């Protein structure tokens, strides 16, 4: 068999891209989120809520102009990679990503929030290691998405191994209950990522992956698109409001990702994101 030609990518190219994405995700709030703030301002009834939404718009403007982080919690660097099967990274993909995170967080004046050991502590000093979710896809390109994830909203997330009998109503109740219990803590207006199906670990991944969608982008399947709309409306009727001080704007959007499941299992996960819904993508 004739060997196929593999595309060789320099590790430094990957590192430079990741470093740039870490900075851009932290400095530049997506236009989709900015539009969602403006849209929410029109509907918000609470004057405190309006003040807060205006502060968030002003904040995004300052961060962009001065190239400083939107939020002091510059997050755990969560990196999604779609690795073309016909490409390889010289020196290794993971080490190139970590080198990029180290550079981005250091040169970009981003906060380093990672403790080397969960119990024994000690800050790693450069925000490494990244959490990398890599999968193989056809082709010779690499698609990299950096999604810095803050601690406050991550702490309000949950996985539930339900019963198949729970069905979609069970998932809805789980999501609504999780958001209600989170109240003001995850920095509302929030974005809600929901995973349904797969296994215990995979459902959490689905909920996180759901957060990569742009605000307003509905699920392809009309059934799930309807559930997304219904959950968003119900969440906004809770009255939690911006920063939980009361108001109409509790969530900017709800995104569902699904996967086949085992006949015996019914996993569901909720991953909550604060209003700083940060993610930037590049293709090498």
């Amino acid at each position, binding site marked *: 068999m004739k060997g196929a030609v593999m595309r060789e990518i320099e590790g430094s190219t990957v590192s430079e891209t990741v470093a740039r994405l870490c900075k851009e995700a932290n400095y530049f709030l997506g236009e989709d989120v900015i539009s969602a703030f403006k849209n929410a301002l029109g509907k918000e009834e609470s004057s405190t809520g309006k003040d807060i939404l205006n502060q968030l718009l002003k904040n995004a403007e300052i961060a962009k102009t001065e190239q400083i982080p939107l*939020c*002091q*919690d510059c997050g755990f660097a969560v990196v999604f990679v779609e690795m073309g099967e016909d490409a390889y990274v010289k020196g290794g993909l993971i080490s190139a990503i970590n080198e990029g995170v180290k550079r981005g967080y250091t040169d970009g*004046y981003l906060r380093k929030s990672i403790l080397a050991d969960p119990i024994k502590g000690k800050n790693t000093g450069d925000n490494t290691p990244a959490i990398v979710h890599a999968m193989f896809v056809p082709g010779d390109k690499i698609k990299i998405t950096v999604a810095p994830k803050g601690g406050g909203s991550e702490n309000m997330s949950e996985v539930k191994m339900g019963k198949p009998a729970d069905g979609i109503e069970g998932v809805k109740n789980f999501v609504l209950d999780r958001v209600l219990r989170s*109240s003001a803590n995850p920095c509302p207006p929030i974005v809600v990522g929901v995973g349904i199906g797969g296994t215990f670990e995979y459902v959490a991944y689905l909920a996180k992956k759901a957060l990569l969608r742009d605000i307003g982008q509905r699920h392809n399947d009309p059934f799930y698109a309807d559930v997304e709309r219904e959950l968003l409306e119900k969440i906004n009727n809770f009255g939690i409001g911006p920063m939980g*001080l009361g108001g109409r704007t509790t969530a900017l959007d709800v995104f569902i990702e699904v996967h086949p499941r085992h006949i015996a299992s019914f996993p569901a996960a909720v991953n909550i994101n604060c*209003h700083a819904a940060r993610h930037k993508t590049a293709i090498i």
Partner: protein
Amino acid sequence: MAEPIRLTTPVSDEDIMKLKIGDSVLLNGKILTGRDAAHKRLFDLASKGDALPVDIKGQIIYYVGPAPAKPGYVIGPAGPTTSYRMDPYAPLLMELGMKGMIGKGIRSKEVKDAMKKFKAVYFSATGGAAALIAKNIKGMKIMAYEDLGPEAIRELEVEDFPVIVAVDAHGGDLYEEGVKKYKR
């Protein structure tokens, strides 16, 4: 909305008792910072009856771990962190004279009870508005626990630092009242 109230630190019991939930407040003067790790150290010292490295009487503690400052900046982006993680430590600090806390998110019943008992107030700052908030911080000095990096205790000089009274010393809780008002 009513005109914001200007409040200068250190604050007195009288200042505290005037504040009601929903009040917009502009803080001036010096405030202290502290979050998870610094609180644990302060709490451990105070539990043993040992002196604290900073004077907290009449002071306000801001729950924050700022991002690094770019050259030419006093401080990096500095928005509030979630407050409930400081709940186990807050009542003892109020007993020792701390008058205010700035953070985001709900507080426990124990903290709210202690606020009533020791006359203290809890302010909400806008989480994720870190770049904007940093503009109201005019000076920064590390006071203790430099080894904790972003978690070190700092003294911030603030000018018209915008906060909202979220829990007052009269038992009011805007997280409950505000949500009730807008629930459908």
